């Protein structure tokens, strides 16, 4: 595993930690006072700091350090997590996320912002915020304490801190320094017994001991009693333990900090020794102070070997952090290994049993999953081809082969579902990102807004998740900027000055439904209408229903904002949102009640890899129509067909008229219109909500098809969404219903036009 891979894993973990951090902070914000929540938040920042240190990401380390210090105050109940405090923390979490992504992708971070937050955090850590409990410092106050020990405690930075930030820059700092030269200090007794995991995670006890030795004068006794005979020992287990006596001016915390990255993997005891403890009953070996030679040979690659700073054990920590995850996948191997421990040879990073117990997930390269999905797709096609040829060659249809085929079909379907489930991910990370956007934008426009999320655990295909973030961000911005009114206006309208945006995800009939509701002013229909007229989108005398007016906002080039603001209205409007949603095979609609807010509803397919479709014949060609678009199918009767204008036709269905669209004509499969009576009409719902009857020649049946991208293999074809391979091995095109419907209205079938279509 090279450094870049490790780094990549680190960043992946960072993302998880950041998510953890944010959700923890939000929980705290909602009044959760469970110490475990605080701990989780603290751990998240701590891990990021640790890993970042290993890679020499100094900005990240120093910010994380300040953040961590403040969180520590919360953890130790010295700082009350009031809403004000949490506001700062949430902002800090955002900056931390920025720093992480800046470290990953390059690019800068708003320095002034992070510096400002550092100050705020420091202030909080020193109890300077009015809301925090009086005058408490992050570390024990020095005043009461007498002579040497407290001096040691006042000594500042943790050894792993090269940030230059002093967690306790108190006025008595000078006092501490005065005392420092006297190498008096106090004697601590440290008992340290690493567990196997410590080594298997890449930590090295020798390095920890070396760092410890730097804190002061150290004597050590190695307890080798636990060591079994040579032929019975496991060379990778941990047998040694140490009793260390160290005379240092540093505090107990500083000593513990040496073991900070290993503390979960060892038994550690640190206590202040009784006076005159230098006469130990144990034979202690004095440790030479000059260990420089070890530095040279202990070779980490990346770090700059900062004195007392980011040194090897942090690398080890990062490696271990990174590997804990990857270890899980080696869990199986680890188990085998345990059985034949002695035989186990050179393997590196053999996972600790603990790692296996801790996680039940594995991290798999997305490419592998995609390959699997592709293969399963091929399998599905192959199975369909096989059964088709069997049916063709075996007219009786009763043979055992048929039975077997049916089972095979079920199995392939099950395999497919399971494989799809691998790609399914909860929408939670996306939703969490949104809460940050709400925070930031609300801050910018001076509104107070709460984001309520529901159904974060709803799962959907990873691709969909990746692609939904952008349109969702845009919509959230819009909702904050335009949807929710200013606090004054809200109060005037008798509403809670704090606005609420509700983001919901749920499964509905094989699709995922994402709703974004605000309790703002709703759509100003008059203005939308006027704007549409001004922009020549509708005729001045057009008679539009409320719904149709609402949907005008999805038209290209439409923005109702009076002035272009920083937040929304960057020249991209809801039409872009709509287009991205449609590119995902989804639909978006809006409903709005003036004075009560608007609700955007997005319906997205759960996966982009398969589709339930209706296979139809049009002018001798086989096409697939997505089943989700079809409302019903019917056999038109001559009496129900009415001509309308030169070549438009309507079909009367249950006393209402619906435009008839000849698919063959629209796609230029034939030059003249087909006779509706000879074909079948598919009643489809178009994006604008209106219904159209699509004319096809015949229905072949329904089946699940594997989507093959046309763009990737050929080029985009207007009116065609994608392609698939049928059971007989032929390629069939999947119809882009909306494009066809739009084209039938005389609009060109250029994608952007067809997608901006509204009722």
């Amino acid at each position, binding site marked *: 595993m090279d450094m870049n891979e490790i780094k990549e894993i680190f960043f992946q973990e960072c993302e998880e930690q950041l998510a953890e951090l944010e959700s923890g902070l939000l929980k705290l914000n909602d009044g959760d006072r469970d110490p475990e929540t605080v701990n989780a938040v603290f751990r998240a920042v701590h891990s990021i700091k640790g890993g970042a240190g290993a890679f020499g990401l100094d900005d990240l380390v120093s910010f994380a350090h300040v953040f961590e210090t403040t969180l520590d105050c919360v953890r130790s109940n010295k700082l009350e997590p009031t809403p004000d405090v949490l506001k700062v923390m949430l902002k800090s979490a955002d900056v931390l996320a920025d720093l992480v992504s800046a470290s990953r992708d390059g690019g800068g971070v708003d320095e002034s912002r992070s510096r400002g937050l550092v100050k705020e955090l420091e202030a909080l850590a020193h109890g300077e915020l009015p809301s925090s409990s009086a005058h408490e410092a992050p570390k024990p106050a020095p005043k009461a304490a007498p002579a040497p020990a407290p001096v040691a405690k006042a000594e500042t930075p943790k050894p792993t801190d090269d940030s230059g930030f002093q967690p306790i820059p108190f006025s008595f700092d000078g006092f501490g320094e005065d005392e420092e030269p006297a190498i008096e200090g106090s004697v601590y007794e440290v008992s340290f017994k*690493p567990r196997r995991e410590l*080594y*298997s995670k*890449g930590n*090295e*006890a*020798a390095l920890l*001991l*070396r760092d410890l*030795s730097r804190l002061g004068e150290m004597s*050590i*006794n*190695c307890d*080798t009693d636990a*060591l*079994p*005979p*040579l*032929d019975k*020992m496991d*060379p*990778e287990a*941990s*047998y*040694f333990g*140490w009793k*260390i006596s160290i005379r240092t001016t540093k505090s107990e915390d500083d000593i513990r900090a040496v073991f900070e990255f290993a503390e979960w993997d060892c038994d550690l005891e640190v206590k202040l020794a009784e006076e005159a403890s230098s006469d130990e009953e144990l034979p*202690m*070996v004095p*440790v*030479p102070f000059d*260990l420089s*030679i*070890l530095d040279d*040979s*202990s*070779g980490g690659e990346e770090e700059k070997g900062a004195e007392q700073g980011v040194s090897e054990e942090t690398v080890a920590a990062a490696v271990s952090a990174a590997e804990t995850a990857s270890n899980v996948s080696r869990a199986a191997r680890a188990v085998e290994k345990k059985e034949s421990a*002695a035989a*186990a*040879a*050179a*393997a*590196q990073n053999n996972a600790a049993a603990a790692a296996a117990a801790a996680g039940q997930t594995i991290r798999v390269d997305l490419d592998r999953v995609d390959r699997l999905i592709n293969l399963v797709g091929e399998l599905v096609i192959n199975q369909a081809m096989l059964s088709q040829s069997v049916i063709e060659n075996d007219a009786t249809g009763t043979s055992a082969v048929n039975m077997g085929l049916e089972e095979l079909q079920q199995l392939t379907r099950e395999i497919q579902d399971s494989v799809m489930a691998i790609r399914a991910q909860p929408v939670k990370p996306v939703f969490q990102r949104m809460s940050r956007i709400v925070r930031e934008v609300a801050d910018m426009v001076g509104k107070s807004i709460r984001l309520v999320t529901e159904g974060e655990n709803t799962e959907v295909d990873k691709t969909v998740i990746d692609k939904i973030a952008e349109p969702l961000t845009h919509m959230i911005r819009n909702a904050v900027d335009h949807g929710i009114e200013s606090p004054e206006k809200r109060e005037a309208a008798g509403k809670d000055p704090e606005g609420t945006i509700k983001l919901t995800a749920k499964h509905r009939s094989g699709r995922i439904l994402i709703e974004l509701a605000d309790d703002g002013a709703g759509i100003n229909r008059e203005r939308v209408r006027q704007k549409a007229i001004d922009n020549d989108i509708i005729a001045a005398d057009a008679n539009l229903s409320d719904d149709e007016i609402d949907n005008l906002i999805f038209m290209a080039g439409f923005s109702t904002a009076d002035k272009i603001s920083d937040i929304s209205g960057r020249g991209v409007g809801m039409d872009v949102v709509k287009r991205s949603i449609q590119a995902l095979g989804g639909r978006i609609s809006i409903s709005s009640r003036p004075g009560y807010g608007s609700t955007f509803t997005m319906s997205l397919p759960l996966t982009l890899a398969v589709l339930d479709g209706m296979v139809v014949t049009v002018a001798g060609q086989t096409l697939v129509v997505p089943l989700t678009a079809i409302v019903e199918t019917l056999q038109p009767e001559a009496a129900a067909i009415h001509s309308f204008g030169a070549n438009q036709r309507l079909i009367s269905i249950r006393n209402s008229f619906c435009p008839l669209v000849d698919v063959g004509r629209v796609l230029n499969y034939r030059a003249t219109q087909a006779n509706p009576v000879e074909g079948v009409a598919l009643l489809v719902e178009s994006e604008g909500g209106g219904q159209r009857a699509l004319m096809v020649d015949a229905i072949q049946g329904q089946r699940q098809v594997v989507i093959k991208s046309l763009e990737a293999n050929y080029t985009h074809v207007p009116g065609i969404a994608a392609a698939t391979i049928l059971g007989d091995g032929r390629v069939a095109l999947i119809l882009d219903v909306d494009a066809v419907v739009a084209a039938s209205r005389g609009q060109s079938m250029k994608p952007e036009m067809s997608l901006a279509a509204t009722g």
Partner: protein
Amino acid sequence: MAAKKAGPGSLKLAAVLDLNEASNLHGKLVSMRGSDLKIDASGVERVGVQCAQVLVAGVKAWEDDKKTFLVEKASDAFQKTMQLIGINHENLVAKEI
């Protein structure tokens, strides 16, 4: 890097005695039981605790066998690390435990 045999009854330790090397070293020692052993630690640049464990176990094993287990040459790093982790270097020249 594996520990190489420098000759009968003698063992040259690898430069990096880390976690990966521990099993290797252990295997070597087990296979060399029963005769006097001279260890050349002059090329050692880094010693991890787990290899130290193996070496100490080796010392004990050789002692049980009443054979000599002698570290003839040792690099500075080897000596310092042993000192650091509190292994009496004498152990490794098998004079006493």
